[in-house]
């Protein structure tokens, strides 16, 4: 069952990602981004990472994409003022470079040969919570400082007069 679901959700994720980078209007891109994020959350469930799948849906699809859509509607660029994208040599080179990168990952991924660890419950809320609040407690606490800095930075940047 897992291979079938992997191919299904992997294809949805890749197709959605391609649509995100090819749509002209950013709103269409944002909606396809939600599709990709949901498919990736489903892949997390396939790998038994239930906690991360929930966080993916809540934080990514629920908060970050809503922030994107909010900004798209707030600045509301009219259709005829959207940047015109032309195919130039440099852009084509960029696509080719990314294609080569994907090829390289494909070759490297085929050689991946790490022995499987114990079949432990590694992605549940319990396991992740224990790791977060014991081994990675300092990193977790510093994360809150990062978020505070981001909040203050966002306010100072977007405010007209402080």
């Amino acid at each position, binding site marked *: 069952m897992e291979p079938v679901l992997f191919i299904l959700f992997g294809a949805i994720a890749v197709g959605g990602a391609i649509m995100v980078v090819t749509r002209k209007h*950013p709103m269409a891109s944002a909606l396809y981004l939600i599709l990709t994020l949901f498919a990736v959350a489903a892949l997390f469930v396939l790998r038994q*990472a239930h906690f991360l799948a929930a966080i993916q849906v809540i934080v990514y699809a629920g908060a970050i994409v809503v922030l994107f859509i909010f900004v798209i509607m707030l600045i509301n660029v009219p259709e005829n003022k959207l940047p015109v994208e032309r195919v130039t040599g440099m852009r084509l080179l960029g696509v080719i470079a990314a294609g080569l*990168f994907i090829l390289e990952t494909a070759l490297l991924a085929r050689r991946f040969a790490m022995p499987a660890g114990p079949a432990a419950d590694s992605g549940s809320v319990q396991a992740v919570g224990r790791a977060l609040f014991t081994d990675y407690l300092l990193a977790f606490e510093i994360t809150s400082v990062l978020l505070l800095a981001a909040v203050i930075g966002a306010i100072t940047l977007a405010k007209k007069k402080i």
Partner: protein
Amino acid sequence: MEPSAYLLLSGILFGIGVVGVVVRKNALIILMSVEIMLNGVNVAFIAVGSHLGDATGSVFAFMVMTVAAAEAAVGLAILIAIFRLKETVDITELSVLKW
């Protein structure tokens, strides 16, 4: 299932994100492409973490998500400030720091 398939998918998502960042002119779509790249990395973390039966993969993916949230908030704030100043989201027109 072997994690190599997940690693391949992660590479494909990252590559598509790179294409979006390199090719597009619309700053909003560039920020979304960065999110796709970070998601591709998360797929690799989760795949290898569950393969090794270690919660560290999930913890690192969690940290990546936090950084992605902070990056989106600050990036979009910068975008609003730029739009207020120059009325554009086209990054090729934003070259005041170029000499």
